């Protein structure tokens, strides 16, 4: 999130974190651009009136650099011309201040789904159903309780179902930029998720590809544990 107004930056980033997102924040355009160019984000929330480098310049430089990260502009500029300028500069969405936080959250969720080509807010992997709106997980209709981090990790795996997701990808999407990477945290969380979604009598759903990462769904191949 790139926003120079501290109270708004704090409120939105806290709310997003509570919603299970890992959030990096920047208070000026230059820092925001640096973050966006050095990390792979699912979505960027970008203010327009920023110190040092304004939001439109940040967006244009990102697009010129080939970034495909979804960007939602969050600004006080409400004129049609402003919206057109922002969307034409490469923004995927535009939200005018003040706004309802729930709306911002829904738009961010939609952008994240679009990143992985999913339009349905309920992601189904075999008999596992993840409701990204209600943030609930059910297997064979039975509700499964997950912590926010476990949910975020499972949602990422579900969005990329059938693909190998590396530990680094998982870390970047679940934890924030400045948090210290701990080598076994991802494995421990994967173990927790596996115990919760793979109850006795159910099929194996979360597979490990040794030396590569994890795959949700699909058949277990050689070398998997």
């Amino acid at each position, binding site marked *: 999130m790139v926003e120079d*107004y501290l*109270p708004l930056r704090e409120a*939105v980033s806290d709310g997003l974190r509570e919603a299970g997102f890992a959030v990096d924040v920047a208070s000026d355009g230059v820092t925001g651009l640096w973050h966006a160019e050095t990390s792979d984000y699912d979505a960027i929330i970008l203010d327009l*009136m920023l*110190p040092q480098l*304004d939001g439109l310049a940040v967006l244009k430089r990102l697009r010129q650099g080939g970034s495909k990260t979804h960007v939602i502009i969050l600004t*006080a500029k409400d004129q049609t011309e402003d919206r057109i300028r922002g969307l034409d500069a490469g923004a995927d969405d535009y939200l005018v201040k003040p706004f309802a936080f729930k709306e911002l959250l829904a738009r961010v969720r939609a952008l994240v789904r679009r990143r992985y080509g999913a339009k349905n807010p309920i992601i189904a992997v075999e008999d596992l159903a993840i409701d990204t709106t209600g943030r609930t997980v059910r297997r064979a209709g039975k509700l499964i309780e997950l912590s926010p981090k476990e949910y975020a990790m499972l949602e990422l795996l579900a969005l990329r179902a059938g693909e190998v997701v590396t530990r680094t990808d998982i870390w970047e999407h679940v934890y924030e930029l400045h948090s210290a990477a701990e080598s076994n945290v991802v494995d421990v969380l994967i173990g927790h998720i596996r115990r919760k979604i793979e109850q006795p009598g159910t099929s194996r759903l979360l597979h490990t590809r040794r030396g590569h990462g994890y795959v949700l769904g699909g058949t277990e191949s050689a070398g998997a544990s």
Partner: protein
Amino acid sequence: MSGSLKTLRGRLLAGTALATALILAGAGVLVYFFVRISLVGEFDAALESATRALAALTEQDESKVSLEPDAFNLAEFTRRNAPDYFAVWNADGSAVGESKSLAGAALPHAAPALNQTILESLRLPDGAPGRQASLTFVPIYEDAAGKTGPGTRIVTLTVARHTAPLDARLAGLAWLLAGVGIAATGAAAGVMLWVVRRGLRPLEQLAARISAAGRKNLGERVEISDAPGELTTVVARLNELLDRVEMTVIRERRFTADVAHELRTPLAGLEATIDVCATRRRMPEEYERTLARCGRIVRGMHAMVENLMALARADARQLTISVLSVELPALLEDCWGAFESAAKERELAAVFQVDSETRIDTDADKLRIVLNNLLDNAVTHADPGGWIRIIGRRSDRGIGLHFSNPARKLTLEQVQRCFDRFWRGDAARTGNGAHCGLGLSLCREMIELLGGTIAATLEDGVFCVSIDLPNQACGSSGGQRRSLAENAAVGAEC
């Protein structure tokens, strides 16, 4: 009627019609009297001529004066309808003779001098108006042998004639003149109506253009093709006025939009903070943290609203000045206390070069607002690790103050706009929302209210605000805004 006289057309028409009527009436009266005098003169000449002709028929013999018999049978004295009359008297008043038309009635016996004629109006024996000519003369003497010579007797002859035909002609003339006058007045009014309508058409066009001006587009101006010279000046002045109105409206709209825009972000912060807090039940300390955040946002908005109110009051000239003797070093030190920690945090070195015991008679509260804003501005925007220098000097008028700090990223164009409302050097706000671009604008309003001047300069990457504040606040009229070129001299101390 009174309604139509309120219009320019009505007044012009009424005025010209009245003037035409008066001129024609006056001319008619003059013509009438000129013709009357002329006709009466002709009438009198004819009457006098008839009198002298009749006098020639008066003879004297040895015993008496008499008229020749033909005189009594002349047609004008014997006709039935409006006959003429005559009568002849001896000098002693005894009658010599009279026309048959008198039928026993009498004519007034005038007594002019010898060979003189008197003309006068009278009421004739039949009651009709008339005029008579009286001539006193000596008739010709003729003896029995027919020999003639000058007579010895003096007689007076009076001939009277009806004036009805003359009066009828004059009455006809009067009616003709009145009719011509009325017709001419009506025709003149009609012509004037056409002329006035045509003449006032540019004015009507102007009224229509003025009425339409600015309805759709404030930039629209009044243009009239072939406008008369008198209106060209009016149109030019009107367009100048519209220029000023447009500038004011644009400024007001921009200001309102800026206010709305500046309030959106803190409102968004407030709403998001509350929304996020309300997503689930929380521990008491989390609610306390949220309340503290909301409090900070509200205080930031409060500061902005206060600045806006102060600016609005300054604009409306509603601020009052309370003059006190202010010790500048103490006031500066007091203000600096609020910014000292922020300056340390940004590793800014503060240099105060203020003459001790520098005092000024001014409004301490207004000066405090200025000092707080300038110190805040310097601490917030000075290059990190740089310095802030405050110079205070006594001057002949009062004091001179100079606030300077390095600001390498600031451009000359930005400095030119730094006193504009809602202007921010980098088009953004700082973390707590207190810097919304009103501070320097408010400083200028306050300093001008105190009768001083304020200017900003940029030289070698150093931004400097210079204030010249007179002793004894003398009101806003003393304040003047300077151009950037003029600022160079003011900023010399920086």
